[in-house]
């Protein structure tokens, strides 16, 4: 830890010292001041010498100076996001110091901005698909430690739900609803042209959590299939393209330092009975045995677990150019101490990007390397659930306790096994630590082989090495029976990419056309290896012998092509075709073809609209995409599985390990999602009001689902197979308004909303009214209970419950359910289809305001029509949860409402509305402008995140992301709370 810190510090010192040593011979200079239409100076404008990659950016006061080695004629371009690119040609004589001030024209709709799409860029104006591009300017601010949080609530059709408040926990991302039941519903994420491995890395919260958000230049979301189909079999859930910041060949060294320091507090805990309330309940209705167990303390167990969380995130970036080698180096150190005691994430990262240009601009190269090291301390999250119901009449510590001094439930025989263990003991007697090293890099060559014809090679690698240990001492009550824990794990991942593609762009002026043609080939391989370790107790004795190690890989080979055709600058057409071959499927089903077609019409450029000054574009698209991420690399192969040493069978005196054929579908293949999209983009009132509106329908066929198969035809009863269909239909809209745009004052706001309806349209071969569907959504309480169902005609994960009967005063009558089929028996035939966990409508609203040097902003986000199963109340708000003898447990306050004596776990009483409005972010900033005699720029801001939540939900937080691999969304079990975070952030530019 300390060594790494020293290394980083030394590196910074070295770089700083080295920089001024380069002295440049100068023949001429070009300098000036850049302003916007209001006359304000514009810092950060990129001034580039065409064809060389050399350039500079304007200073804090809008001034720039560009130095030239030789006299001559040059083309200089000025670009800044939100403004029209301006190009001028100048001729310099030796020794001349030319002055050139410039006013950039606004491009409010960013129509001229090049947007990164798969395998190339397209000018925003020429886009035909439903694509949203979010740049630095619009990112969420504050203690944003994972990249996806940058765009929360900013994009219609995109739903981002953080998994929990755990440091580095990551998020669940859904673009236009999930298209699958049992395969992944995560979008494909591409960083600098390298599709990354979306599956988790052991010892790390989430695949994206290792990336430094400060490194990201912009995030492009390909929402509809006409845009995403170029990524073929992995694009059914949309594509998120992340582009990191790059350097350019400025002779001047730019240093940017930013720091964000935050503290975080828990805002809400589960409402439980106080010690006195519990004493009342037990003394009133408890047995003598129970009453005898009551203690005299008043312990608030939940409060004992939480602390003030502290986050510090520091970034320093060096950028500039060494001769014609533009570079950007970013170093980050982030430390997040979670609100749950002992949870911590430390991240150190370095990212270097070099993008030199050779052969007079004919060969562009780009190298990006990001290396991250994280140290994680995982707190025992079991303590969160235990603290809810641990008896508040008992003390935290017990001097006589042999279990590390923690109070524990005991009887004459010692520790009571079934009793919950002291939550603080769980937390403090477990060291669960991991470290992860990850490298993501790519090397890209773009050579103009002939005029307008480029050949591109992009090679990428994404490697991670992680390992972790879990140590619990012998005296810890939790593992007392085994004598503690001393376990370890390791994982290596190597993902490789090689792309070669060609691009040809040509203006055919004679026929007023432009074509842009891309065709290529891609090879990708994902490899994962996990050695097997025995599970040991603290002393090192084997508790469970090592199982079978994991080594698994899959390969994807693809051919793809795209044509963009632009007629008369008004009529646009994009057609793409991709063929994917995956090792996951048998040779017969291995190859799949994914076409798309989209057209757009720039109505506002027609003559009849020329006077309106309006911007109007119609878009229509169709595309086929696939999903092949099914969490198994060999689903089509008849595999025999060897049993573990604890699953053997005895013949005579010998135990034989078992060979079991696994159930499999030899004909398994990818899902296919066919999407239709109609959209309109508009801007009027001088582009002060702009927005878009999209209608879409996504139909998934060959839906991958785990379903029962005819008994006797396979080696198990349910297999993952292509069956059925599902539809997502929706409307999404967004509007941006620039309400005020004056020299000293500005006000801008945006709103976006999405309506999505999900329905399973087919799931079985035969229809039978007695078969409701496939039970999913495992819940706590009892064994094997489920609360959701996949059923035809309903949304995925629809709640499936008994209908509670209430008395006249509205209180639930315990054990009474509506007998739906009137057969006088309440059994599984009386379960009913209810609500579902996905929102019918979700929306975001954000506003930003500036006055002189002050800025302020906030963002709100809401989801409506989503429901949640309150599993905490259903298991812990019931008198039965206070055991009959031996030990005591607390009740949640819901008991005072329901007065349930026994578990009513499948009652719809526990289905609650989880609609909510959350203020994700509110901030105030002040820009000091130039400081240190004009040598530096300084800005500071204060931010509050997770400001408030308004929701009818009775639990802690209405936003529940659900488990891994699509499991159990909308079920509230114990949960690491999302804290409220207060941050101060400062940015210093040198």
């Amino acid at each position, binding site marked *: 830890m300390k060594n790494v810190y020293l290394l980083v510090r030394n590196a910074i010192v070295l770089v700083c010292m080295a920089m001024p040593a380069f002295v440049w011979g100068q023949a001429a200079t070009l300098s000036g001041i850049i302003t916007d239409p209001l006359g304000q100076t514009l810092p950060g404008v990129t001034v580039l010498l065409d064809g060389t990659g050399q350039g500079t950016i304007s200073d804090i006061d809008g001034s720039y100076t560009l130095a030239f080695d030789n006299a001559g004629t040059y083309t200089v371009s000025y670009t800044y996001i939100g403004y029209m690119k301006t190009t001028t040609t100048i001729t310099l004589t030796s020794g001349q110091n030319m002055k050139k001030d410039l006013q950039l024209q606004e491009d409010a709709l960013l129509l001229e901005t090049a947007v990164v799409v798969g395998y190339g860029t397209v000018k925003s104006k020429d886009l035909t698909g439903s694509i949203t591009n979010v740049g630095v300017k619009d990112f969420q601010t504050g203690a944003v430690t994972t990249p996806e949080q940058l765009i929360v609530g900013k994009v219609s059709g995109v739903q981002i739900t953080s998994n929990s408040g755990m440091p580095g926990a990551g998020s669940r991302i859904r673009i236009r609803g999930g298209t699958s039941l049992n395969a992944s519903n995560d979008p494909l994420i591409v960083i600098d042209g390298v599709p990354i491995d979306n599956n988790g890395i052991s010892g790390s919260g989430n695949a994206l959590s290792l990336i430094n958000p400060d490194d990201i230049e912009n995030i492009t979301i390909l929402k509809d299939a006409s845009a995403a189909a170029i990524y073929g079999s992995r694009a059914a859930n949309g594509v998120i393209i992340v582009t990191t910041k790059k350097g350019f060949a400025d002779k001047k060294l730019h240093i940017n330092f930013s720091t964000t320091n935050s503290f975080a507090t828990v805002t809400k805990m589960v409402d439980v009975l106080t010690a006195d309330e519990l004493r009342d309940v037990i003394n009133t209705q408890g047995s003598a045995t129970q009453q005898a167990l009551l203690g005299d303390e008043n312990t608030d167990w939940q409060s004992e677990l939480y602390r003030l969380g502290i986050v510090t995130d520091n970034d320093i970036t060096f950028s500039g150019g060494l001769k014609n080698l533009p570079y950007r180096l970013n170093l980050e150190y982030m430390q997040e101490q979670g609100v749950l005691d002992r949870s911590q994430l430390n991240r150190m990262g370095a990212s270097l990007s070099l993008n030199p240009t050779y052969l007079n601009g004919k*060969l562009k190269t780009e190298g990006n390397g990001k290396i991250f090291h994280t140290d994680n301390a995982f707190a025992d999250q079991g303590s969160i659930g235990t603290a809810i119901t641990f008896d508040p009449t008992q003390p935290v510590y017990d001097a006589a306790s042999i279990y590390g001094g923690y109070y524990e439930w005991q009887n*004459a025989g010692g520790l009571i*096994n079934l009793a919950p263990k002291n939550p603080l003991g769980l937390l403090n007697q477990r060291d669960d630590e991991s470290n992860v090293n990850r490298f993501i890099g790519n090397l890209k060559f773009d050579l103009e082989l002939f005029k307008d014809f480029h*050949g591109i090679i992009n090679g990428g690698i994404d490697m991670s090495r992680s390992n972790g240990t879990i140590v619990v001492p012998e005296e810890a009550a939790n593992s007392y029976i085994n004598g503690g824990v001393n376990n370890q794990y390791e994982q290596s991942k190597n993902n490789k990419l*090689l792309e*070669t593609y060609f691009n040809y762009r040509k203006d055919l002026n004679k026929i007023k056309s432009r074509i842009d043609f891309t065709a290529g*080939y891609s090879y990708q391989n994902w490899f994962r290896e996990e050695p097997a370790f025995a599970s040991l107790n603290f002393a090192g004795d084997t508790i469970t012998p090592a*199982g*079978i*190690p994991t080594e*698994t*890989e899959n*390969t994807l*080979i693809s051919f793809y092509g795209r044509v963009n055709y632009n007629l008369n600058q008004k009529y646009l057409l994009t057609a793409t075709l991709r063929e994917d*071959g995956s090792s996951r499927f048998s*040779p017969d089903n*291995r190859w799949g073809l994914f076409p798309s077609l989209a057209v757009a019409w720039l109505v506002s450029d027609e003559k009849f609209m020329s006077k309106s000054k309006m911007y109007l574009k119609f878009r229509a698209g169709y595309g086929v995409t696939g999903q092949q991420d099914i969490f198994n*690399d060999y689903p089509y*192969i*008849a595999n*025999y*599985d*060897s*049993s*573990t040493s*604890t*699953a*053997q069978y*005895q*013949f*005579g*005196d010998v135990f034989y*390990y078992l*060979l079991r*054929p696994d159930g499999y579908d*030899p004909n398994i293949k990818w899902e296919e999602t066919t999407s239709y999209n109609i959209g309109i983009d508009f801007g009027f009132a001088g582009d002060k009001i702009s927005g878009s509106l999209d209608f879409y329908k996504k139909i998934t066929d060959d839906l991958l689902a785990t*379903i*029962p198969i*005819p*008994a*006797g*035809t396979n*080696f*198990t009863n349910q297999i993952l197979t292509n069956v059925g269909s599902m539809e997502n239909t929706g409307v999404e809209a967004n509007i941006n308004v620039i309400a005020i745009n004056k020299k000293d004052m500005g006000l801008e706001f945006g709103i976006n909303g999405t309506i999505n309806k999900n329905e399973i349209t087919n799931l*079985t*071969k*035969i229809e*039978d009214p*007695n*078969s409701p569907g496939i*039970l999913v959504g495992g819940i706590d309480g*009892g064994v*094997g209970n*489920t609360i959701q169902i996949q059923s035809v005609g309903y949304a995925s994960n629809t709640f499936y419950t008994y209908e509670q009967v209430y008395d006249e005063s509205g209180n639930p009558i315990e054990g009474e359910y509506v007998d739906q089929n009137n057969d006088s*028996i309440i*059994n*599984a*035939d009386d379960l009913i289809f209810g609500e579902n966990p996905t929102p019918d409508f979700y929306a975001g609203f954000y506003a930003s305001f500036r006055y002189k040097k002050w800025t302020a902003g906030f963002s709100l986000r809401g989801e409506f029509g989503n429901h949640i199963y309150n599993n905490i109340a259903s298991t812990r708000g019931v008198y039965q949860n206070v055991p009959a*003898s*031996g030990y005591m447990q607390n009740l949640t306050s819901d008991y005072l409402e329901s007065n349930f004596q026994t578990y009513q776990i499948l009652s719809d009483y526990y289905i609650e509305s989880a609609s909510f409005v959350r203020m994700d972010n509110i901030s105030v900033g002040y820009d000091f402008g130039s400081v240190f005699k004009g040598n530096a720029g300084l800005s500071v801001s204060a931010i509050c995140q997770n400001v408030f939540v308004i929701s009818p939900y009775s639990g802690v937080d209405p936003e529940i992301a659900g488990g891994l691999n699509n499991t159990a969304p909308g079920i509230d079990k114990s949960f690491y709370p999302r804290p409220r975070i207060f941050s101060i952030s400062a940015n210093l530019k040198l």
Partner: protein
Amino acid sequence: MKNKLIFSAMLLALVSVTTPSCFNDLDLEPAYGLNSIAVYENPDNYIHVLAKIYAGLAISGNQGPAGNPDILGIDEGFSQYVRVLWNLQEISTDAVKCAWNDPGIPELNKMQWSSTNSFVNAMYYRIYFQIPLCNEFLREAADDKMDERGFSEADKSLIRSYRSEVRFLRALSYYHAMDLFGNVPFVTEENALGADAPKRIVRADLFDYIESELKAIESEIPSANEYGRATKGAVQTLLARIYLNAEVYTGTNRYSDCATYCAKVINEGGYSLEPVYDHLFMADNHQSNEIIFPVTFDGMFTQTFGGTTFLTHSTIGGDPMSAIDSSYFGVQFGWGGNRSTPQYAANFPDVDDARNMFFLDGQTLEFTEDAQLGQFVVGWPIAKWRNITSTGAVGSDATGNYVDTDFPMFRLADVYLMYAECAARGAGDVGLGLGYVNALRERAYGDAANNVGSITPESVLEERARELQLEGYRRTDLIRFGLFTGGDYIWAFKGGSFAGASVPEYLNLFPIPSSDVVANPNLIQNPGY
């Protein structure tokens, strides 16, 4: 320009080299585990596949005790073969009421199951996990396959001997299918895997198939083998069992065939009664000469949450019982689930009977309200299954979780009582039958003082209730006597309420799971569901 040419050449070379070679990369196979070709190429692997078929009766998956289940759709611990079979055979009757509220259990207690009941489904899919496994083995162990693979004569002869065991195990599972579900899907080694939906077979035809299979292997299978493996005695006992209830299955009684096969087992099998009744249900019961066919368990190497681990833990509950030193039951703590009804307890008039194993301390017997179904302290638990050896040593798992005790699927006492019942029905020697009943009573009481002077079918049923309590026979026995459904015999929670009520006759068969009715168009749901 020169650079450009070099670069272009490199680009082309790279593309042309990588493209074709990469296509082979699409043929990937798992690094660990074996595919079906590799498994059966090695004759040494056959015994491990055979072990899996046997283990399908004992454990719930390939990772003990849980984590890699054989079947899905139910909690893995619940899905173990003996456990679900026992639940269907015992909890549905007067013998056992389970206090848990887990899905499917209240409906079993109250005889209110439907075609989505998770235990009914688990039993069905357990059976149809075993059968395709057997079919696959028989296909791969066929002579022509072994010839193709060039196995030695010694290997071939060994593998052939496994085949009759596999056919026995398949017949055993089909017997359970016939007894519980009646008219079911029918697949043999002739039906390739993953082919069309299986045909439906009606109960009487399935009876004929099971009978013919067992008779075919009766002469092939060895009379003696390693402990744990099926022998001629097991085949003959299974024949006796299908004949015993033949009238239920086919409409024609076969009591004389039953008596014939019981006599074969008794006279030729070489089995003898275990001298002490308790020892049959203890951790070293593998030493007993009474057990004809066991399902074996081991606290270290054959771990499961089902089987005898379930049977032992689930009957322990309540304060006084839980407070008993763990050296008595040999497990750390009870699960507080299964106890009996007053109606069943009435079969045990004598405390001197070693088979009277009710635990009374802290328990009340009579159910007086519906809510007591969920209260373990009402009803009497039967402290029969233990994880202690006959010499008092605790089982091998030091954590006290997993039990060593084997489950006697067939034992000699059942054969004695089957013979006695057939004799009492006029299909055997009554004197012999009476002798067999008294042999069991002498063992239970320690002397002949409580021997009986005569037997009737009904008295044998009562003797079965005592001798074979909690061994998974009860439902089948009650059905044979017409007492399981209807109103002739009422017990607590029969039909739903604590007082008990008559239930319709269709409940004699469990429903075909609705999930299979949906998946297999050849199936017809059993009447009433």
